């Protein structure tokens, strides 16, 4: 129902096969009209990646979203305990701003988390058969139309900003990956400006949702630190006036729980925020940083990164405040029942056998012209 189904296997071969020129010359024999699907299907239903879709394609998540509920539960639980147990005491003894600040941070965290999880990270749709065949033609393959043979890895070189960048061919998606694009094996998609696949968020982090992810970790750092500070203050205030810490803990055990959770999370989250702030300022992705794509070659500072504007402010602005690119996979569009630019639909009635013979002959001509 709501789960996206996988594409028909014709688009995805288990082993590599030469693209069949028959797919390019003429379309496969068309079924008689009564076999046409009764309702038009939306594109998310035939999406070939491993994502799942909800709300009729409006929401996209990775297949393994297992840890996202845990993330949400931890955040909601800790914040809930904070609002219920710490806030009344602190409002009474300190200021009423505390729940207000906490509330704003909490809202920011939850909204940016949900947006990170449910937004298309910049998935590239797979190549149409004609496109894939065209790419095949451009690449030398002296062994011809053999099947079950994996050709050598294909790369293309481009020069970006006086730097040579290698573009790799993706065998699954049948495209040359644009620069900074990487194939996520968990989601089985090529993602633009691929940063990493985050299990806590249950989605890839890429071009379109990186700003949401960054907002999430920064606001979560502030929230965690804020709750940690408030819980500590709460316990400190309670243990003053002659009571000990033990009495304070007995009076408000929830604060102790919050302290433990926040203490262990604040280091990793603040560290992660710091790391990503560095990446944003240098216009790098986690993927590039881990692989050392632009560093470690000759010990020069950032001279290797061709995408950097060499200005921290400009890098930050372009990554976080740049224009929001559109989703390329058009989840809610309808699958065309007959492609308007392909050979005409069933209006032309031809004897099937005669069509096949001509098709074979034409395909042979075509194949020879490709090879020759």
């Amino acid at each position, binding site marked *: 129902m709501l789960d996206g189904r996988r594409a028909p296997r014709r688009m995805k071969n288990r082993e590599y096969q030469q693209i069949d020129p028959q797919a390019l010359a*003429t379309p496969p024999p068309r079924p008689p009209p009564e076999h046409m699907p009764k309702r038009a299907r939306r594109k998310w239903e035939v999406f070939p990646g491993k994502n799942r879709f909800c709300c009729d394609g409006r929401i996209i998540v990775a297949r393994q979203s297992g840890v996202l509920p845990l993330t949400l539960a931890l955040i909601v639980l800790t914040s809930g305990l904070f609002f219920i147990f710490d806030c009344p005491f602190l409002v009474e003894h300190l200021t009423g701003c505390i729940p207000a600040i906490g509330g704003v941070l909490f809202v920011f965290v939850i909204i940016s988390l949900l947006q990170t999880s449910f937004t298309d990270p910049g998935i590239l749709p797979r190549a149409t058969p004609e496109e894939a065949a065209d790419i095949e033609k451009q690449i030398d393959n002296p062994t011809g139309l053999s099947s079950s043979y994996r050709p050598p890895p294909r790369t293309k070189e481009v020069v970006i900003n006086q730097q040579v960048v290698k573009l790799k061919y993706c065998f699954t998606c049948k495209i040359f990956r644009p620069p900074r694009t990487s194939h996520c094996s968990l989601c089985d998609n090529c993602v633009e400006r691929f940063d990493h696949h985050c299990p806590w968020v249950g989605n890839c982090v890429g071009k379109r949702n990186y700003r949401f992810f960054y907002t999430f970790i920064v606001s979560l750092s502030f929230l965690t630190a804020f709750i940690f500070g408030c819980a500590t203050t709460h316990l400190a205030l309670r243990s003053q006036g002659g009571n000990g810490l033990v009495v304070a803990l007995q009076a408000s055990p929830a604060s102790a729980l919050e302290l433990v959770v926040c203490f262990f999370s604040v280091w990793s989250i603040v560290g992660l925020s710091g790391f990503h702030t560095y990446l944003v300022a240098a216009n790098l992705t986690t993927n590039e940083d881990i692989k050392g794509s632009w560093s470690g070659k000759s010990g020069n500072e950032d001279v290797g990164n061709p*995408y950097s504007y060499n200005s921290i402010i400009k890098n930050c602005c372009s990554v976080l405040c740049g224009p929001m690119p559109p989703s390329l996979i058009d989840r809610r569009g309808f699958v065309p029942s007959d492609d308007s630019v392909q050979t005409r639909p069933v209006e032309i009635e031809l004897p099937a056998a005669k069509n096949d013979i001509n098709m074979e002959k034409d395909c042979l001509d075509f194949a020879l012209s490709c090879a020759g």
Partner: protein
Amino acid sequence: MPFHNLQELRHSASLATKVFIQRDYSDGTICKFLTKFPAELDSRIERSLFEETVKTLNCYYAEAEKIGSQSYLEGCLACATAYIIFLCMETRYEKILKKISMYIQEQNEKIYAPRGLLLTDPIERGMRVIEISIFEDSGSTSSSSTGSSPSSATAQ
């Protein structure tokens, strides 16, 4: 070539082949297409018209992806509202994509369909290629070495 409009093209012509104009990554990851004139279009359309189309498209995309005061404003406003504004408002990029779509439609009607060609909006191909479909008139024998079905009896 006798195609007078897009409707005629779709109903009376058979698809001969498709040409793909690839992306130009020399300026980085911004959306830009190569203006190299493909050999298959040599006999179908003038080079200058083709280059004009691709250059105009490149300009549109450059404008959409431009990082300037308007995009900063949009970005900061979005951040301040926890990006909820993206759910309500159409972004600048989407507005320009609509303009591009109309431009391509206009080009198809005025220039490409009369020559038996059809441009496909790059957004439908994941912004990877500009797909140009080359049609052959179903009545005539195919002049190019492609496999259009010659056995079509009547076109209508």
